[in-house]
């Protein structure tokens, strides 16, 4: 184990904690920007430090293809390669394999696929995934899991869940750097509470440094989504970090934090920035709209970021979708927004007002979605002051 997790404050199930990793001491709940190819598109590592980024996620699949994990290892690891002094997390490569490669085939051995470089058949095994991640050198590495979308039903989900447990043992055995890198297991099981329960128990038995809740954020309905998160957070150990993979929208992060999750990652803030959309307390602001042409207000008057302090909506409007600077400035703002949301969650969890403030700004008419109300019920947080019904 190469981490320390200390809960500093609570509100019912929500926790504010310190997660101390080899490269950085982080505060949770936290959001991790996705730096697919060893970089966050549109931002330098200096800027990421400036806005308070604590952990960046790197994609094993993309890095193994270019520039290869061997080269990264030779050059001293991904931290040095991308000049990022704080924490890094790599995923196993499994998700991209399944989502990007149409001809991927999953067997007990691993994931066979066609190399996108030369079309040759290739095999990603649990052992290979861990070896690649050992070379990349991130503070947290993920076990290779058998990921199945929650929109699928049938015996495949059960097969994937049991296989995930068998593969985690192979990952543990293959892991050569347990004192420098923390291997997280990933809970699978689709939307079936029985399967999820078996998977949680199996992973907890392995006594891993941390646990992720996988297989979500893939198109399932919100009501199913929060119930899986609620079940898993209730069953996972109190004293270890919980990471909901692929989440997501600010509202989803607030709900999951209320239910007891600590870590999140998503491409949404940066990707939506490249399409001209800014994240604001009221929801989103589409800078491409003609309404923005002469609007001399900042994107968000309550935001303290470099973009909101210096630029008007009118100026950003003239840049978006036409000039790279538009994507850069919006990505900067959107990430600042997500990181500020994380900081607010951490500091206000003890006060217990964090959910209401957020919901009141996003739903000023009180039309909070039913799934959010249901989730807050289970989380034991009273949001009646924000709901009209």
């Amino acid at each position, binding site marked *: 184990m190469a981490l320390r997790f200390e809960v500093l404050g609570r509100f019912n199930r929500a926790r504010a904690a310190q997660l101390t990793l080899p490269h950085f001491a982080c505060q949770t709940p936290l959001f991790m920007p996705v730096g697919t190819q060893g970089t966050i598109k549109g931002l330098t590592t*200096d*800027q990421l430090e400036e806005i308070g980024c604590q952990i960046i996620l790197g994609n094993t699949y993309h890095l193994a293809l270019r520039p290869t994990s061997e080269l990264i290892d030779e050059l001293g690891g991904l931290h040095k390669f991308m000049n990022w002094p704080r924490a890094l997390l790599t995923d196993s490569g499994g998700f991209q394999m399944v989502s990007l490669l149409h001809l991927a085939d999953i067997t007990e051995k691993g994931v066979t696929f066609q190399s996108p470089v030369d079309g040759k058949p290739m095999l990603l095994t649990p052992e290979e995934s861990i070896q690649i991640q050992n070379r990349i050198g991130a503070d947290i590495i993920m076990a290779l899991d058998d990921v199945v979308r929650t929109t699928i039903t049938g015996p495949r989900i059960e097969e994937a869940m049991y296989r995930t447990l068998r593969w985690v043992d192979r990952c543990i055995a293959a892991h050569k750097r347990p004192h420098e890198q923390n291997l997280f297991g990933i809970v699978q099981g689709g939307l079936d509470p029985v399967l999820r329960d078996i998977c949680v128990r199996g992973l907890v038995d392995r006594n891993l440094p941390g646990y992720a809740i996988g297989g979500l954020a893939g198109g399932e309905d919100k009501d199913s989504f929060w119930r899986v998160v609620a079940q898993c957070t209730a069953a996972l150990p109190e004293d270890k970090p919980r990471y909901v993979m692929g989440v997501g929208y600010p509202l989803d992060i607030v709900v999951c934090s209320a239910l007891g999750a600590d870590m999140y990652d998503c491409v949404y803030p940066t990707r939506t920035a490249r399409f001209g959309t800014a994240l604001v307390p009221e929801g989103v602001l589409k800078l491409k709209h003609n309404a923005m042409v002469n609007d*001399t207000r900042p994107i968000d008057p309550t935001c303290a970021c470099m973009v909101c302090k*210096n630029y008007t909506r*009118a100026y950003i409007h003239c840049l978006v979708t036409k000039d*790279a600077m538009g994507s*850069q400035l919006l990505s900067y703002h959107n990430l600042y927004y997500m990181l500020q949301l994380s900081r607010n969650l951490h500091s206000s969890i003890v006060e217990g007002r964090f959910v209401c403030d957020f919901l009141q700004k996003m739903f000023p008419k009180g039309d909070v979605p039913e799934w959010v109300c249901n989730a807050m019920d289970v989380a034991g947080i009273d949001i009646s002051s924000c709901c009209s019904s």
Partner: protein
Amino acid sequence: MKFAVKALSSGKARAGVVHLGSCPSPIETPCLLLSTRKGLPIFISPDLLSSLPSPDSNLLQFSPLHFSEGPSPKTISSIGGLHQMVGLHEYGFAAVARDSIQCLPECGSTNKTGASFETPCGRRLIKPVEYMEMITSMKPNLWATLADEVPAWANNKRNKTSVDRTVKWLDECIARSP
């Protein structure tokens, strides 16, 4: 603005110093103006720009035509000018109608009323009065007047016409000088 020649070589070269109101330090010449797109260097946001050597990197060149699709001169004025709009208060801006990449003079379409340019938004004819409206709203430290630019291979007649027009527009621009 103040400019002084500090030293001369045995030939024609000179070393000088430029003082601009918005720049905190004087800038030595010869100096390189950073080219910009809509007021900002192409991939360098202001917080990164400050990591370049200063004051040598404090002079930027821009083309008012980059804003032909907005924001309007009225909006730019209400924001307070170009420096304010792009968040570069301690930098100097030099305005030239053309840049060397995307706003290129189209001398075949220029006529007695205005200069024509090929821009990413299509071909635009700019009259001196429109140009000066942009200059007045943007408030650059330095600006070139609107000229009828022709390539070196233009024939004598076209060349003469370009000089006559340029001088005429020079007077019109000066008359509307902010």
